[in-house]
């Protein structure tokens, strides 16, 4: 037991109040709060209203056939940055003006509880956003798709406890996520957004965390798994739909792989890897030698060839969360820097895939933390969530060369940059 644990243990000596009577009293007050109950008079009114509605079917039908007013459609030059804000809400940030607004208001009453990492992912035409999060306060997380043109929020699957990873196919027709952390075997779930057709692919057991990513052509799903059968896997979507055996194949095994991102041109996979690097990793972030078994940011062709290590780190803290530039030539990622007090903290780096030293482009203030970065579709900006003690969290926008840093407070931590719709 270290000193910190001992200090926390002292909390056990503090006396506590008995609040059970208070809780029961409050529960009774909650019961007294007004709510709808059946009453004969209300039922008669309801029947009368129903009759009136039926009589006016033609008029009502005409109204329903009108297209509902569309929510504001994204027209920003750089696309709109959207993040899941908790409680069913979506927050949107205009990259040009730094204005933050509710794209979808959270369900009241709702406190935005801590941060809300929820794997938001856009379809390639920027019309559908998939994410995982509770559809209501305190509710179970759901696999959800938000349809921008109509404003419709569709729940495609309820998570038993917590689902992991989420991606949407480029054409917006399917979502994929890993379900049931406690299930054995766990499964990759693929759901048709419009059809509701659902496929379950059992994952190798035992399995820890997992996260899928569709290829840009939508024909494959890459999947990183942590745990006993860890590695990078590929799912052939057509074989999955045909029910063929072998839909899931191992691409790069016996490594702890995480945070996978497919390059926009479909020619590379980037992911964070722990172990199996096969080198005495050299920590480029600090310039000091570190031990084997270190972490690395790795890229590999989708057939498993041409593996390259773009950056390395310590076992405790390595490069993670890659996001590709639109020309597929560079990767931005998080990796630590060590300050004069010996404290590691995350910084934002870029690395060209054809070689050269990684470049540190944004280093937050001493105690700030960084979330997953996202490179804009036009390549002009990189957005990264930042937690700032004593201030609200927000999103930092920075040019890929590290210039022109801007901070947008009030945005949730995991930004997803909307692809620019094709004209």
């Amino acid at each position: 037991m270290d000193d910190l644990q001992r200090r926390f243990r002292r909390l056990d000596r503090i006396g506590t109040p008995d609040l059970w009577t208070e809780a029961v009293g409050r529960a009774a007050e909650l019961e007294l709060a007004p709510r709808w109950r059946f009453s004969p008079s209300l039922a008669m009114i309801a029947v009368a209203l129903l009759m009136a509605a039926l009589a006016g079917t033609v008029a009502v039908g005409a109204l329903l056939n009108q297209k509902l007013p569309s929510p504001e459609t994204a027209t920003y030059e750089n696309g709109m940055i959207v993040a899941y804000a908790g409680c069913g809400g979506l927050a949107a940030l205009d990259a040009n003006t730094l204005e933050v607004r509710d794209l979808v208001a959270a369900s009241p009453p709702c406190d935005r509880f801590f941060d809300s990492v929820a794997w938001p992912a856009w379809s390639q035409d920027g019309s559908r956003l998939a994410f995982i999060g509770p559809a209501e306060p305190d509710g179970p997380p759901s696999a959800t798709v938000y349809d921008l043109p109509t404003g419709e929020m569709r729940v495609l699957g309820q998570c038993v406890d917590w689902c992991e990873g989420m991606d949407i196919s480029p054409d917006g027709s399917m979502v994929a996520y890993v379900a049931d952390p406690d299930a054995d075997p766990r499964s990759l779930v693929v759901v048709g957004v419009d059809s509701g057709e659902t496929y379950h692919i059992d994952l190798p057991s035992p399995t820890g965390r997992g996260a899928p990513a569709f290829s840009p052509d939508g024909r494959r799903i890459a999947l990183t798994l942590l745990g006993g059968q860890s590695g990078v896997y590929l799912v052939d979507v057509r074989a999955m739909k045909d029910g063929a055996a072998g839909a899931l194949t191992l691409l790069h095994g016996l490594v702890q792989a995480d945070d996978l991102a497919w390059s926009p041109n479909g020619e590379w996979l980037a992911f964070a890897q722990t172990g199996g690097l096969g080198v005495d990793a050299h920590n480029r972030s600090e310039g000091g030698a570190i031990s084997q078994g270190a972490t690395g940011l790795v890229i590999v062709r989708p057939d498993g060839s041409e593996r390259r290590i773009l950056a390395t780190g310590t076992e405790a803290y390595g490069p993670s969360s890659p996001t590709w530039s639109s020309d597929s030539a560079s990767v931005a990622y998080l990796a630590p820097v060590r300050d004069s007090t010996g404290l590691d903290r995350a910084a934002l780096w870029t690395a060209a895939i054809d070689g050269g030293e990684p470049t540190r482009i944004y280093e937050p203030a001493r105690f700030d933390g960084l979330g997953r970065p996202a490179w804009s579709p036009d390549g002009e900006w990189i957005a990264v969530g930042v937690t700032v003690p004593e201030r609200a969290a927000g999103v930092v926008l920075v040019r890929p060369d590290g210039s022109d840093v801007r901070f947008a407070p009030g945005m949730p931590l995991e930004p997803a940059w909307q692809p620019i719709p094709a004209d």
Partner: protein
Amino acid sequence: MESVAVAAEPAVTIEALYRQEADKLWRALFAFSADTEIASDAVAEAFAQAIRRGSAIRDPRAWVWKSGFRIASGDLHRRSRSVHMIPDSSYFDPEVDSELLAALAQLPDGQRAAVVLHYYADAPVREISRRTGMSQLSVRANLSRGRKRLKLLLGDRHG
């Protein structure tokens, strides 16, 4: 006044849960908020809502912890103390490690919750995720950063 029937069976179950968890939850919320009033309000409210929801809650233990932290977090924000938390100096329990509370108060909400649940409630990452609503990825990040910062604030750079 009309008598109110709170569903008997769920209340009994929740009372058993209260007897098991309330002290630990209260102390964790006290460490989280540095405020006895917020800790008491959050515990009472979380269990009140649990009683009312009864069997609709699938995992009551995780639910009351999550609700307790959510309520305490909301209270802190409403009191605008999340901007700069000040440990409750009116609470004079000699067992209170005021230095620890002051250091915790300097962490962001997510880091503070993750550190308290890890060090005080002995919760592993998955359990912290269940009790806070944060993803496991987020818990790991918050725990790592919160632990490092807390040790630095407390003058222990080697632990």
